[in-house]
């Protein structure tokens, strides 16, 4: 298949809702399911940023404004498919059935975290939902995704790998590696580039002179497409097509999901220092939650009462899960030495014993104690 890019088919998703008032019931059902998770993720992000300001969470990177791009693309995957995420796709794990309490324990970095408190928040990993943790270096996960996809193909499995990246990652060497290798190996991988238009303080117009990021995918011989990432139905449709093509053995696909980072890069960032609030306001008018709610209401499957009930219910779910997760103690010091080698060498046991003896004499004080 010849590489190509396709531009946005429609300027405003609200217009699309009007043009296509009678979406099939199955589509609406799926949109509704994803919408519920979009609301959960929005509430969860708000709660986590509050806890971060209270000093109960160390760091947080929210998905605010990108819920349709994130959850819409992940929603088309099969249970056996893999995700190699970037910073903001943790919510896809919840969509795919990962327990909220375990998710929160990672954010608290405590003993309830399957990754044993070893990484900052927003670096989740769970083999149960085939989601690998990303690297803060940026782009690093992309060639790995290609390798995992190629392995699936060699082993005769129908697995598709979805690899996420931001607009900044398209400048990284590993982006170049991944696209080059994916096309050469015809690996069943779908690159979902969330162009949220800001890499911390750098706008995409200063990140690259390429007018569309989808052009970059096409340059490697990967069929590429730009999609309105704030339009859930458009994301579902484009991601569904891309995943189906990859699964059918047609090789990789590249999607540029055009969206906007409504919040700060992370809890350590202050975007008022580098971007104009008027731009944020323009994108607030295109908040993917509002757009999808409007669509569902117009389709007659949603209303204010249901919205209120959903939000109340989910706020309660989050509050209960936070209380449960926060109660776990920190990981034991011995866990520092686990999972290094399959057969730990002498240096590991020696240092474990030394630390044990040191802590017995001089236990660490908890911060603030």
């Amino acid at each position, binding site marked *: 298949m010849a590489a190509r890019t396709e531009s946005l088919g429609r300027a405003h998703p609200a217009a699309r809702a009007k043009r296509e008032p009678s979406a099939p019931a199955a589509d609406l059902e799926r949109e509704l399911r994803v919408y519920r998770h979009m609301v959960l993720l929005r509430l969860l992000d708000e709660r986590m940023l509050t806890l971060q300001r209270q000093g109960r969470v160390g760091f947080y990177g929210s998905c605010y404004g990108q819920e349709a791009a994130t959850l819409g693309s992940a929603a088309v995957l099969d249970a056996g498919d893999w995700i190699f995420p970037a910073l903001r796709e943790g919510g896809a794990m919840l969509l795919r059935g990962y327990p909220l309490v375990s998710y929160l324990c990672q954010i608290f970095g405590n003993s309830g975290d399957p*990754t044993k408190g070893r990484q900052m928040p927003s670096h989740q990993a769970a083999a149960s939902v085939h989601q*690998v943790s990303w690297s803060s270096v940026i782009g690093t996960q992309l060639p*790995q995704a290609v390798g995992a996809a*190629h392995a*699936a193909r*060699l082993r005769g499995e129908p697995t598709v790998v979805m690899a996420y990246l931001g607009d900044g990652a398209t400048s990284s060497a590993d982006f170049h590696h991944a696209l080059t290798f994916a096309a050469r190996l015809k690996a069943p991988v779908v690159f979902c580039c969330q162009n949220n238009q800001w890499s911390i303080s750098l706008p995409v117009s200063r990140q690259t002179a390429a007018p569309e990021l989808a052009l970059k995918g096409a340059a490697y011989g990967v069929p590429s497409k730009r999609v309105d990432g704030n339009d859930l139905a458009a994301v579902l449709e484009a991601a569904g097509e891309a995943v189906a093509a990859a699964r059918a053995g047609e090789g990789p696909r590249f999607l540029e999901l055009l969206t906007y980072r409504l919040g700060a890069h992370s809890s350590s960032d202050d975007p008022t220092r580098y971007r104009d609030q008027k731009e944020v306001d323009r994108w607030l008018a295109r908040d993917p939650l509002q757009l999808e709610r409007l669509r569902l209401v117009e389709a007659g499957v949603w209303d204010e009462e249901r919205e209120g009930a959903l939000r109340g219910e989910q706020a309660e779910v989050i509050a209960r899960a936070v209380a449960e997760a926060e109660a776990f103690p920190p990981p034991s010091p011995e866990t520092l030495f686990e999972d290094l080698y*399959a057969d730990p060498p002498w240096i590991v046991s020696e240092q474990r014993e030394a630390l044990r003896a040191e802590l017995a004499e001089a236990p660490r004080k908890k911060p603030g104690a």
Partner: protein
Amino acid sequence: MPTMNLIQAVNDALRLRMREDPRVVVLGEDVGKFGGVFRATAGLVEEFGEERVIDTPLAEGGIVGAAIGMAMNGLRPVPEIQFSDFIYPAFDQIVNELAKLRYRSGGQYSAPLVIRTPSGGGIKGGHYHSQSPEAYFVHTPGLKVVMPSNPLDAKGLLLSAMRGEDPVIFFEPKRLYRAARGEVPEGEVEIPLGVAARAWPEAEAPALATVISWGAMVPEAVEAAQALAGEGVAVEVIDLRTLWPLDLDTVLASVKRTGRAVVVHEAPRSCGFGAEVVALVQERAFSWLAAPVQRVTGLDTPFPYTLELEYLPLAPRIARAVRAVVAYQP
């Protein structure tokens, strides 16, 4: 028993593993039809096909990154980095990703793969074809680091590395690829990682000094030991074989017998792996030592093209250092 050189031993080990385990794949630049620039993968694509012997695009970060993903999803990749001088574009993938994958995922994922790469100088390769970067990788928790010094060890250690569950950086001393020849059994050879060997003398005998080395400097240390024997200075040469995990017991046992130690490596001296060995010996065998432990190494300069024999810590430089520690008076 067949006689092989070191490159044939590597090829033999790869073929053996590929025959017994369909999960084993080889990937790298020019490893397919060409069989690798040193011929390490010669004949593999003909026997196992292009799906398992992958000529990759020219990008080391892509080779290692893709190999990590393959290993995570059930394959046993053996990527080749054409020269260890070219490993730096893959440094992030190795140090931040490969080494830490099991750890950062809490044991949910791992990447059992072996990166093979020719290292060391003495082939008129200038500084882009001669470096010995082993210390960078020993410094990274989660990796194992291996460097054989002869064909038999190359086959046995590579088989162990490929059968293990941990990522291994496998340095092949390219100066010995064809220079080192020896008997290597067909089929299985069992040499575990993490076990050093005495390279000289053949049978344990009283000695005045221990020389500790690895890779292409082991034959140099043996040559020095043979020359010193003619002067009445008996020396024991320990070949580490695996740098990490280090077989410290074997090192300490020898140093405690001889009371003197010289560590020899080809890489630059400062912060080389020799510094770690010296530190461990003085921490744990201080009262057995009759002289300060010495290092004989490459120079703290980039690896040169024309003057490589001046750069390398060859037998005469090793013998000088041994004479000095034996003559040492406090």
